[in-house]
């Protein structure tokens, strides 16, 4: 099945800093999503982005499907951005969404 790798595994930022999280995947995808898992465990959908670029406030994401990677940009980070960020992908035919191991982000004052 598809392999999903995320980097970096851990990231500590000062409030107001910008960051880029990377997701590499091993196969063509028909679904790629970025999620934020809050301290209570809920997975919040940030972007559905199998290709192209999207922006939502301070967050944006780009997927280059031909090169099999996706980037999540966080600008002007806030303490509420802390948590684990997951990238997940699936191939065609409704196959299961496979998750990467996540990036643990901590934003400090």
């Amino acid at each position, binding site marked *: 099945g598809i392999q999903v790798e995320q980097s970096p595994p851990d990231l500590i930022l000062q409030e107001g800093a910008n960051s880029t999280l990377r997701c590499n995947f091993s196969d063509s995808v028909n679904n790629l999503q970025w999620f934020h898992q809050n301290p209570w*465990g809920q997975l919040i*959908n940030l972007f559905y982005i199998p290709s192209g670029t999207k922006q939502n406030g301070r967050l944006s994401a780009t997927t280059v499907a031909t090169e099999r990677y996706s980037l999540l940009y966080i600008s002007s980070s806030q303490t509420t951005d802390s948590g684990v960020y*997951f990238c997940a992908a699936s191939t065609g035919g*409704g196959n*299961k969404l496979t998750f990467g191991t996540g990036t643990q982000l901590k934003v400090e004052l």
Partner: protein
Amino acid sequence: EAGVTQSPTHLIKTRGQQATLRCSPISGHTSVYWYQQALGLGLQFLLWYDEGEERNRGNFPPRFSGRQFPNYSSELNVNALELEDSALYLCASSPGGGRYGYTFGSGTRLTVV
């Protein structure tokens, strides 16, 4: 629009018992997915149901089973509970086949003692 709802929020069971977890998808979504997130093991795919049928299954023993009802809600049953079944169980729904993205519920935290 209501999101994906899961119940109960927390569940404590004794080893050897059975646990039943429930999930209601977003209205109009026909696919329901179950994932297990055990400490240190990441998010592992358990089951996928669509239109009442099991479509795919992860690498879990048969004591993990479930079903999807005509209203597309779903139930996950875990029989003969083991201590290592303690985990956060997350349910997600999508319009069909996952091609339009998954939306997750808040999860059920199962503790086996």
